[in-house]
């Protein structure tokens, strides 16, 4: 049994793929730090190299095009237990066919990558749906979110073009980093002394804009009155809007 260990980064995984090809090896597992190792396996420690990673990435791009690259990267973000091996086998298949294989859905690893890609994109879409801004006293709009996968970077562009004339912060409270947009440029930030509650991300009393409560009240009232009582169907509501998002929702938060 042969086990590759890498540093858990995407370039690290690409390096692992490079090494496997180079050493003509077929690892039985490619493991990130903290993953459950194989019994009695011989271990090869991958040393992340930007250069090797770039070469693999360029190869995937040349054969599979940008869409393949995106699929693989999104799948990686899922942190699924088998994602490394799926990406490795997918790449082997891709290079063997020397043509895009993303629609070869009867191939188990292509299907796996396809499904993980969809899953991660669905979570990214949910950020677009359920993220809520609150205006802080200084005028900045603040939105906390803790997506299941690290997808905030995928949606920043959407918010930048949409809310181009307001300064905002979108903060991943689970991963402790976010993005600040000052109406011109975006920078990645970490907040050392948060003025928001850690559970909901709601701004603390006194730090929000004086009008903020008024808009909350109007939105909640709208939310209530637009529903038709005779058609009440809470199961349907929960299917579309899983409970784990409620803590961000102005209309659902207590």
């Amino acid at each position, binding site marked *: 049994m042969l086990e590759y260990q890498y540093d858990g980064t995407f370039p690290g995984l690409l390096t692992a793929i490079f090494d496997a090809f180079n050493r003509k090896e077929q690892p039985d597992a490619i493991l990130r730090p903290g993953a459950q190792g194989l019994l009695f396996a011989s271990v090869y420690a991958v040393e992340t190299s930007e250069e090797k990673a770039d070469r693999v990435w360029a190869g995937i791009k040349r054969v599979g095009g940008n869409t393949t690259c995106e699929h693989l990267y999104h799948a990686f973000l899922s942190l699924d237990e088998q994602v490394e091996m799926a990406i490795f086998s997918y790449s082997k298949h891709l290079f063997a066919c020397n043509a895009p*294989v993303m*629609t*070869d*859905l*009867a*191939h188990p690893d292509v*299907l796996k990558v396809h499904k993980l890609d969809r899953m991660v994109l669905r979570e990214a*879409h949910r950020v*677009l*749906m*359920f*993220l*809520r*801004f*609150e*205006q802080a006293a200084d005028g900045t*709009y603040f*939105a906390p979110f803790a997506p299941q996968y690290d997808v905030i970077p995928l949606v920043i562009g*959407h918010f930048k*073009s*949409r*809310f*181009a*004339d*307001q300064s905002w912060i979108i903060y991943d409270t689970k991963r402790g980093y976010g993005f600040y947009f000052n109406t011109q440029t975006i920078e990645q930030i970490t907040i050392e002394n948060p003025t928001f509650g850690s559970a909901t991300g709601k701004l603390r009393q006194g730090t929000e804009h004086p009008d903020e409560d008024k*808009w909350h*009240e*109007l*939105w909640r*009232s*709208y*939310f209530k*009155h*637009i*529903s*038709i*009582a*005779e*058609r*009440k*169907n*809470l*199961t*349907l*509501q929960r*299917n*579309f*809007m899983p409970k784990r998002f409620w803590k961000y*929702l*102005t*209309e*659902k938060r207590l």
Partner: protein
Amino acid sequence: METLQKLEILSSAAKYDVSCSSSGSSRMNTPGGIGNAAKAGICHSFTEDGRCISLLKVLFTNSCKYDCAYCINRRSNDIPRAAFTVKELVDITINFYRRNYIEGLFLSSGVVKSADYTMERLANVAKQLRLEHKFNGYIHLKAIPGASPELIHMAGLYADRLSVNIEIPSEPNLQLLAPEKDFQSVLNPMGLIKTGIEQSREERRIMRKSPVFTPAGQSTQLIIGATPDSDRQILTLASGLYTQKSLKRVYYSGYNPTNLYDKRLPALAAPPLRRENRLYQADWLLRFYQFGVNEIVNDTNPDLDLEIDPKLGYALRNPHLFPIDVNRADYHMLLRIPGVGVKSAKMILAARKFRRLNSANLQKIGVVMKRAQYFITCNELPAASVQDLSPERVRSILTMSERRKQLPDAVQLGLWG
């Protein structure tokens, strides 16, 4: 009156308009502006009735000079009336938008003074949002029947979508419930909008900078169950609207018992949700599955079967077309297999170029094998097909497992938006 109170009244009054879609437009933000439209639309919340909230859906006013039997806003109802000012509406829209509550505004209204007076007010809200506030989010306006072509044209220049609701699916029943209205008054603005869209498309082919006219097209709504109109009448009307008026969407709204004092209306205990759901499924067959109306409803079956979905109904009425070989059949036929949706049909086409597909592959691609198994052959020994078992038998097997699920309107998932 306080804005909060107005919002309560004017959103409650708007809730029976089921459309809340923000799709179909890809309007971009402008320099210094706010907002853009997402082509596929985005839902931002879901109400307790499980419907998507994408837009701020309100009436400009719930006062109305008409007295349509089925409408809560009819003039003979003694209810609190309110009207927004343009500024109030603009403020709420922009502030909701900035907080990512909504994709934009869906503005409708009762008719006050005249059709023109009302239409002008609606168009002005859109105009202010676009010009003074550089708002590029989604705007859906109601076109008021009887309004002048100029005003409808102006509305179309600022709106992403316009809609005129037919509400009652047949002329005689419309006459009965809304004697002041007729079909022609609704069809006229639809024609104007259609021409506007075609003209602007033509102009933009020649000059790319020519103004867009309702890029997300037009839609309408039909009330289901307030009148004895059959599903066949309803779907024939819908299909005509899609093909002749190029409508983007027809919405079906199960009649919610209101104005019970009016004896022209049926006494329903609850809105006919199941029928409404079946109509949406049939509508999808028309729009995305290449079905003709006559394949869904006909002389012998003027109404949809409430127990099974219309596609399964079609398959059971036409067992001679099955089983279909998924490794050979064209897209059109793949779409007719119960359990195969548009997505999985496309995936089958793509995946079978690489290798022949077996039932495990199909299952993993997303085909609902529990249903599809009676209607397909694939790369392995065929299971018992609908021909071997008889349509009646397949029907009873499938409705049994359906009933066990007991999920109210589960199929409706994915149909909204």
